[in-house]
């Protein structure tokens, strides 16, 4: 069955963004990028919440035609162009990005249906509120948390609103020169 991989850049204290959505504290150098891009070979679908979706849609297609785009950025742009883009929203019916679809009115059922379909794994990135919902509904099969060398003290957490303690099992821990530690977990049960 296809797996949902959640990738988040987080602070040491677990925040995926500052209180006002700040992300300028995230370190994303070529080492971290190469690590993240290892997912390209095993995922064929991107899942985004509304804000992240709009951000991605307005940015990545421009990279495809940018003569100055870095090769690694181009890799991601090409991957995303071919991937199915899933927008999680309860208010939108459809979107005009190529190969896109909208889910959200019956999220658990819709995601489980996607997981049953043939294909590669599904990649949920950023999209903090959507990530919270996925976690709460038990829809995440792998957590990729890139722990940045900074504590924020407050901010937006993907673990906010948990109804019970979430227990995970560590799969790998990869420290990078820039101080980011890439942690991969699966649900403990």
């Amino acid at each position, binding site marked *: 069955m296809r797996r949902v991989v959640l990738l988040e850049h987080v602070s040491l204290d677990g925040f995926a963004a500052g209180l006002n959505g700040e992300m300028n504290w995230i370190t994303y150098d070529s080492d971290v990028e190469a690590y993240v891009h290892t997912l390209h070979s095993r995922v064929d679908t991107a899942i985004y919440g509304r804000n992240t979706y709009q951000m991605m849609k307005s940015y990545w297609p421009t990279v495809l035609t940018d003569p100055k785009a870095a090769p690694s950025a181009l890799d991601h742009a090409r991957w995303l162009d071919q991937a199915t883009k899933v927008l999680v929203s309860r208010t939108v019916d459809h979107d005009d990005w190529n190969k896109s679809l909208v889910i959200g009115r019956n999220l658990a059922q819709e995601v489980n249906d996607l997981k049953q379909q043939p294909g590669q794994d599904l990649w949920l990135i950023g999209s903090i509120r959507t990530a919270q919902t996925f976690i709460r509904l038990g829809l995440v099969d792998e957590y990729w948390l890139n722990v940045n*060398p900074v504590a924020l*003290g407050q901010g937006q*957490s993907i673990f906010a609103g948990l109804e019970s303690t*979430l227990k995970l099992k*560590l799969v790998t821990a990869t420290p990078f020169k820039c*101080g980011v530690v890439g942690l991969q*977990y699966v649900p403990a049960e």
Partner: protein
Amino acid sequence: MRKVIVSNLMTLDGSIGRPNGDLDWFVTNDEFFDDTPDQMDQADTLLYGRVTYEGMASYWPTAMAAQQNPAAITDRMNAIAKVVFSKTLDKADWNNSRLVPGDLGEEVRRMKQQPGKDMIIFGSGQIAAALSQMGLIDIYRIFLNPVALGSGIPMFTNTIKLKLLSSRTFKNGVVVLEYAPEAPAAV
């Protein structure tokens, strides 16, 4: 100069306790219990806030503590010098304790100048946060537990840029991360 080391078990969402202080989520194993005496051998003093001190003082001298922990830890916890910072506590009876009702920052600055080994803070969220804000913490040692609570007592209450010093993994999934503040600790 002596370093001040904050050493805590922390959840993936940055908590060192449930909202009511419960620690039932702790993930510990032999590696952790082997590590603690090693840690303590690098230090000669523990720094406490009142709440953690009272909890520890009512636990470590008991038969239950002796039963639940290796002697290497119980003995060290009871023997090592302890400083508790509190304006409300009137005495500190746990073996080798000293009560400091005065200014936290002033006393820690003074102690850092004295000869001796490092000083460790276990738990004690309020004094750890206060010292952190004063720039008096040299090392953050975090035993990152593979657990998220959703809410709890935060380890960090302000923004601090850090440098990763080391990372180790225990078999039970705890990741031991050591950081120094990017800005060197104040004197």
